[in-house]
């Protein structure tokens, strides 16, 4: 066993792996945010609240309908995604053409409303949610004990990220999305119902947030403020990756998870600030983020 900066290498492997797990959540959340920004030109501040709704939906399904984790994994993104589509039809469609500021404030207001309602009904301590039986326990990797559920989180979110990337970058549907991002009026003039596509895209982005919420439920405390705790960080991830860049959001999400993990070893107090330091540096060097198109 050798040491790196006074930290045993084995410990470091563990930390890297944990960073990757956290990165999975950042990647999933920032992916949804990037998809929404790319298509709707709206910075979706409600994303955190929708992530929280995902976790709560899983909890409620289990509590009141007895539906387990695996069902929730499928049903919750659909439900919360549908609620997102409603939000898009009721509110967001009116701010899409305006300055980003208005979309930001509107979605921020919605996030407050949602969080407030959940606090009213569920209090703030949060609710327990157990990992599914299938994924109980864990593996001893030698350098650390890896809970099965965490391994599942990495694998599953990699798959989701890849599938999303594939759909957007490699399929016909994705080509509609990309084209509509560049020039929605023209795509519409080709006979594609762009407003409906926009609604579905928002629903999809929100569904991704809800999916992340379901996956987070067994790990983190299911509480109304879990979304507002994470939204600013995810927001920073998207900016560092380059607004609207799908690949940028995924790679940056995982990478920042790892960097944050390492910070937790070497300078734990700064672990929640390191992302902002990186954001400042990246923006000073690359004005449009790591993967953003240069204007």
């Amino acid at each position, binding site marked *: 066993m050798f040491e790196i900066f006074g930290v045993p290498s084995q410990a470091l492997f563990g930390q890297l792996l944990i*960073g990757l797990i956290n990165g999975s959540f950042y990647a999933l959340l920032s992916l949804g945010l990037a998809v929404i920004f790319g298509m709707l030109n709206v910075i979706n501040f409600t994303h955190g609240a929708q992530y929280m709704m995902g976790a709560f939906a899983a909890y409620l399904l289990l509590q009141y309908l007895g539906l387990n984790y695996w069902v929730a994994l499928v049903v919750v993104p659909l439900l919360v995604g549908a609620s997102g589509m409603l939000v898009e039809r009721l509110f967001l469609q009116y701010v899409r053409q305006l300055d980003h500021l208005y979309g930001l404030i509107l979605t921020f207001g919605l996030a407050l409303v949602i969080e407030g309602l959940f606090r009213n009904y569920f209090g703030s301590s949060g609710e327990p949610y157990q990992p599914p039986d299938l994924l109980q326990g*864990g593996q001893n990797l030698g350098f650390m004990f890896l809970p099965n559920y*965490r391994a599942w989180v990495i694998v599953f979110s990699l798959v989701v990220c890849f599938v999303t990337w594939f759909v957007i970058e490699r399929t016909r549907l994705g080509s509609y999305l990309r084209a509509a991002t560049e020039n929605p009026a023209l795509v519409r003039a080709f006979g594609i119902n762009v407003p409906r596509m926009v609604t579905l895209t928002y629903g999809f982005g929100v569904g991704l947030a809800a999916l992340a919420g379901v996956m987070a439920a067994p790990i983190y405390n299911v509480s109304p403020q*879990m979304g507002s705790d994470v939204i600013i960080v995810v927001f920073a991830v998207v900016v560092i990756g380059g607004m609207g860049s799908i690949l940028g959001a995924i790679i940056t999400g995982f990478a920042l998870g790892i960097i944050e993990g390492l910070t937790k070893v070497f300078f*734990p107090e*700064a*672990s929640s600030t390191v992302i902002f330091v990186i954001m400042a540096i990246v923006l000073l060097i690359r004005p449009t983020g790591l993967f953003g198109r240069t204007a």
Partner: protein
Amino acid sequence: MRVAASLAFALAAIFANAAQAQNPIPVKIGVLTDMSSLYADDTGPGSVAAAKLAIQDFNPAAHGMKVDLVVADHQNKPDVGASIARQWFDVDHVDMIVDVPNSAVALAVSDVTRQKNKVFLVSGAAISDLTGPKCSPNTIHWTYDTWMLANGTGKSVVKTGGKTWFFITADYAFGHALQRDTSAVVEANGGKVLGSVNVPLNNQDFSSFLLQAQQSKAQIIGLANAGGDTINSIKQGAEFGITAGGQHFAGLLVFLPDVEALGLKAAQGLVLTETFYWDMNDATRAWTKRWQVSRPGKFPSMNQAGVYSATLHYLKAVAALKSAADGKAVVAEMKKLPTNDPLFGKGMIRADGRKIHPAYLFQVKSPAESKYPGDDYILKATIPADEAFRPMSQDNCPLVNAAK
């Protein structure tokens, strides 16, 4: 238009309070608490319900008194808390503020209370400085404090074999104080602190810190944090097999609602110190039943019980003085009168403002051991009242020195 409306609203609020019948002795109590955030379940609406029960049990009419209650949310911001306190004292004629979880807010409110010569009864906040360097003739620290937590949990854990410790500490003054006090107790009792890690507030993922704790090979992982942070640490600790690997958590500040939120499966085996448990005896159970009328399905925390106990004692003192006007006098009267209530039993208030009662070391039951909702704790030890809190000699409280 809306400015005018909000001004009118403000005016109405102020005048409504000014015009009140003056015949009975008026007393106004303000529950200043966290209604919406981190500590809302440990205090918040439950504290309000407890204060109402205290007023009801005291029966103001019988003592020729009229007691009003106001409530506000300090949002865990010292400036918000201080400004509400100021406004209550200046405008709304509030005589006493009770509860105030969050140490920073409590310290700020304590300053304001002393300036305005009113009464401040702390139940929710933990920091022992309130009866130490920051003690005040207008403040009583009721339910618990950091020294008591450190001493209760730290001492008994070391005594039962938990010799080596690793701290996961919330990176702010309260966390550091808790770690400092506990380390002192651990070392004084022959234990050893192997390391610690400071974690930013509202961190979601503790696995990295748990891994560091695991690698320290310490027997005990002391959690010098609170609320959601504690819940997440324990929940993820179970996941990473911390307890299965032979290490144990010591929750330095854990309340019953936190245990409920965690679920017994994750929390089982956790050792913690509290001064009140709803299922202690018939009196506490009867009170809990009444409390649950307004908080269905919940179980009261020690903070909420403390609000009841403090409010009741305060009203007795006011009744004895027949006036709530002079805060210092009321506090002095409260210190003079022995305390007695169904929740904390008999006790007293020291010159430094410390309420003295026994503390209890509990262990969280396993799901199998729990027979009914809320059946969460096994009583491991009772720390007698005279040992539970920091002796006045170690206080550095200026009030006590002045008295000498």
